[in-house]
């Protein structure tokens, strides 16, 4: 049973455009929602994260929007650059088990 659903599976955006990736969850025990960026041949790296008591968090060109009532959160990449081309994973931290549950990932390609 997939506990974190991520969409789209892949995304192509032109340079300078906005990339939007969405995630949804069911488990109300999740208490922390990080996004990871993974380049080919590398391990995932923490990009930005949010707690459910905040509706939005912005760091540079990256913004997380969080809707607790809908159990949904999204990553927005403003002014997308070719260097942003990577696979992005949303995740959720289970407060009861201190583990992360990942979505299936979104492969982002930013065309020059």
């Amino acid at each position, binding site marked *: 049973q997939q506990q974190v659903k991520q969409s789209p599976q892949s995304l192509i955006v032109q340079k300078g455009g906005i990339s939007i990736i969405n995630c949804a969850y069911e488990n109300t025990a999740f208490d922390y929602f990080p996004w990871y960026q993974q380049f080919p041949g590398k*391990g995932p*790296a923490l990009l930005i994260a949010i707690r459910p008591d905040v509706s939005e968090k912005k760091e540079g060109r990256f913004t997380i929007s969080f809707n607790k009532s809908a159990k949904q959160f999204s990553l927005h990449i403003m002014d997308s650059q070719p260097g942003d081309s990577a696979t992005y994973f949303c995740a959720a*931290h289970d407060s009861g088990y201190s*583990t*992360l549950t990942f979505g*299936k990932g979104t492969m982002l390609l930013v065309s020059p």
Partner: protein
Amino acid sequence: DAGVTQSPTHLIKTRGQQVTLRCSPKSGHDTVSWYQQALGQGPQFIFQYYEEEERQRGNFPDRFSGHQFPNYSSELNVNALLLGDSALYLCASSNRDRGLSGELFFGEGSRLTVL
């Protein structure tokens, strides 16, 4: 400051064999978690070690076992390898005293191919 280091980076085994993967956590971290990442999928939690004991375990069979040493480094062992065990195995470290921030630092992984 070295991050999370894993070895080997790539290895090929045949069905039925056994494999041991190794991980050294980031300096100052005391908790090690292992994840399996199949091609095109997100990482799946295998287990977590703290104070040399397995603290949490995901939905993986007993063929998957681990160990944590006094210096916090860790090993992942997989017995009786199956074709479906082919994946990238990721080690992630964290510091338990930081609380439930969930921030994990990942290594670059060990790519296991089972033939």
